[in-house]
């Protein structure tokens, strides 16, 4: 049966199991939208800005593990997606972005709303395609989804000219796809796995350092099993939170710039670091020359470029994290007679760690006069569902969430770690809520970042997406203010928001509901009411304005040089 290119595109999405897309119409996708009009299998959600649409697709992908899909028109629509694409790229999120393009005959002519979006996004996509012929749509989409989700996942952009959308063609979706230059190495080498387990069993001060790849690779269960079997302490990056239950006694919490004292001390004093799908980002390692000076390093990652990029590695294992960890469990079982001996050998290490834990736990000074942000986060954990999905924006509130919420399940924290994109939290929550209408979805934001995509409240209300927006309002761009306080003699250059906003009225204007707490004793009530309300909600907390995120490893300092209280 013949159909036009726009319809073929939708049939491809259907074949890929796509049920929800986030998109914004315009001249070069009007044909695609015309086909969508009667295409009931796909739910289309109209955000109020393409950046938000892209973040929503990203949030959808992070929460579900499936490929998120965003659509935008050519030119300004396409450029508006760039921040969303870069955000997904830095955190390896599987996504397909379909952009309209001017008709092929006009490409290169500076036509109306023409932009070289493939060129613009080349450094922040895993791959991209320009579809030049209606015959190529199906194969291109098959490749796009395959590339987006396999190996180290990432965003793939498909540029889709208007004339190709209008051309007639046949629809045949390929069952399989073969890309000769793309063969991700998924199977961890058995010899390397063997060596890894031998190294672990010989270690006295081992620590597992777990990154976002463990969440993306669906390897939480294997990780948890292996860590418990070996009784090896586990620290995670911001992106790795949820991969290992923080309620477990083996958990050291998050490491790095705002990581726990015990995690950073454990890394610095370790004799063997088992890096599990983490990438030794500078926010994690601190000063590289003094990073983990006594440790041998085993590095498990599906992306060979991550290995030995920043630090020397003694044993690289390239492969899918779930595969490698599964093999390590089998290998550990083969060595079960050595496990008791190993446990005894690492006992002093556990004692040392528990001393660090007790000496400087993640903590704050409670107040009866002003609301402490950390207190709000703790209360949120207490009062929210076990499987609630939390998204954050970027700034102090993000770090407080990471420190105080306690994540025990994978895919329950959605946060922009690599790019650190303000404006991410609200639309990402929107995407997660679209995927899980029945689950509690809460976004924790600062008063700065929430304003970057506040227009999405309209999308929430229109689509019945009951996201709970928590605003920790310090009336500052708090994280930058903190740096100015510590490193720039309190010259608060352009970090005071000055204009107070009435968020209750704002919620009201969008047809949502607003709640406000200004005193500590109101916190619990506001959270209860907010979570109980059936629709989208703003819960605003006026927090102590100059609260700092601590501990802190100043940029460029060694991991063990933490500012603990300042």
């Amino acid at each position, binding site marked *: 049966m013949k159909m036009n290119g726009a319809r073929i595109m939708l049939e491809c999405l259907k074949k890929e199991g796509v049920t929800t897309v986030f998109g914004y119409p315009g001249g070069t996708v009007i044909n695609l939208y015309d086909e969508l009009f009667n295409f009931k299998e796909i739910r289309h959600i109209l955000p109020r800005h393409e950046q938000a649409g892209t973040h929503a697709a990203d949030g959808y992908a992070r929460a579900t593990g499936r490929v998120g899909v965003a659509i935008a028109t050519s030119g300004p629509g396409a450029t508006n997606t760039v921040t969303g694409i870069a955000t997904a790229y830095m955190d390896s999120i599987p996504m397909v972005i379909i952009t309209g393009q001017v008709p092929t005959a006009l490409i290169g002519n500076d036509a109306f709303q023409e932009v070289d979006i493939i060129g613009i996004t080349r450094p922040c996509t895993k791959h991209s395609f320009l579809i030049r012929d209606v015959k190529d749509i199906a194969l291109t989409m098959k490749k796009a989804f395959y590339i987006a989700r396999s190996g180290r996942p990432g965003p793939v952009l498909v540029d889709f000219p208007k004339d190709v959308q209008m051309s007639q063609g046949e629809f045949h979706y390929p069952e399989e796809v073969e890309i000769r230059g*793309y063969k991700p190495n998924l199977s961890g080498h058995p010899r390397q796995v063997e060596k890894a387990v031998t190294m672990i069993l010989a270690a006295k001060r081992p620590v597992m350092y777990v990154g976002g790849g463990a969440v993306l690779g669906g390897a939480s269960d294997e990780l948890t099993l292996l860590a418990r079997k070996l009784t090896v302490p586990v620290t995670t990056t911001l992106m790795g939170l949820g991969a290992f239950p923080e309620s477990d006694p083996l958990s050291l919490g998050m490491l790095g710039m705002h990581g726990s004292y015990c995690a950073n001390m454990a890394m610095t004093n370790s004799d063997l670091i088992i890096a599990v799908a983490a990438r030794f980002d500078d926010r994690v390692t601190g000063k590289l020359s003094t990073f983990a000076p006594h440790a041998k390093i085993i590095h498990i990652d599906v992306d060979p*470029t991550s290995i030995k990029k920043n630090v020397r590695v003694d044993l690289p294992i390239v492969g899918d994290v779930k595969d490698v960890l599964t093999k390590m469990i089998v290998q550990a079982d083969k060595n079960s007679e050595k496990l008791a001996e190993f446990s005894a050998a690492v006992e002093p290490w556990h004692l040392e760690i528990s001393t660090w834990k007790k000496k400087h736990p993640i903590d704050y000074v409670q107040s009866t006069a002003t609301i402490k942000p950390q207190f709000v986060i703790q209360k949120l954990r207490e009062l929210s569902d076990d499987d609630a999905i939390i998204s954050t924006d970027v700034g102090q509130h993000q770090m407080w969430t990471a420190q105080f919420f306690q994540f025990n399940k994978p895919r329950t924290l959605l946060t922009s770690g690599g790019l650190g994109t303000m404006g991410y939290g609200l639309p990402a929550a929107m995407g997660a809520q679209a995927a899980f209408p029945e689950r509690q979805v809460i976004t924790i934001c600062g008063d700065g970042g929430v304003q970057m995509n506040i227009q999405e409240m309209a999308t929430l209300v229109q689509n019945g997406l009951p996201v709970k927006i928590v605003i920790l309002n310090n009336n500052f761009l708090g994280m930058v203010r903190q740096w100015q306080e510590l490193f720039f003699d309190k010259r608060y250059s352009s970090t005071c928001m000055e204009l107070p906003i009435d968020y209750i009225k704002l919620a009201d204007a969008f047809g949502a509901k607003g709640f406000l707490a200004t005193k500590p004793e109101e916190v619990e009530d506001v959270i209860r009411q907010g979570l109980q309300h059936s629709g989208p909600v703003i819960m605003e907390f006026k927090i102590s304005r100059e609260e700092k995120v601590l501990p802190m490893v100043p940029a460029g300092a060694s991991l063990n040089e933490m500012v603990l209280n300042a």
Partner: protein
Amino acid sequence: MHHTQHTLSVIVENDFGVLSRVATLFSGRGFNIDSLSVAPTNEEGLSRITIVTRGDEQVLEQINKQLYKLIDVLKVLDFSDGSALERELALIKVSAEDDSRAEVLRIADIFRAKIIDVTPKSYTIEATGNPNKIDAILELLRPLGLKELVRTGAVAIGRGAKGWNG
């Protein structure tokens, strides 16, 4: 750190935009490109990019891995170990008046270079050879007055009977 020159031969899909993907990778990650040349090969749909780059061992390893990570890259051959034959072509326009005319001809002759254009004031020379040889002829011609120089950048092929894919 020890920075050595490496010649990489990169076999790529002859796709739209592949050259800019490779170039973006080098510029975006701060890798050096001393020279780059690209053209289709005998195999349907494949092109070969020869890149001369510099870096220590770790940088070279990253370049290698990053290139492989590009979807359009099939194979990266690192010819730094002298396992390959390298050739470059240069077109050199050099001043040649009075006394120096004979000198230019003599130099060209020594390097088995061809004169491909002649005017009363200049010669244009075509020289091919290992990039070091090109450097050498240029060094001799420079004092006579180089008017213009075009180099292709190196291309390289492995020694022996085997093709790159066996």
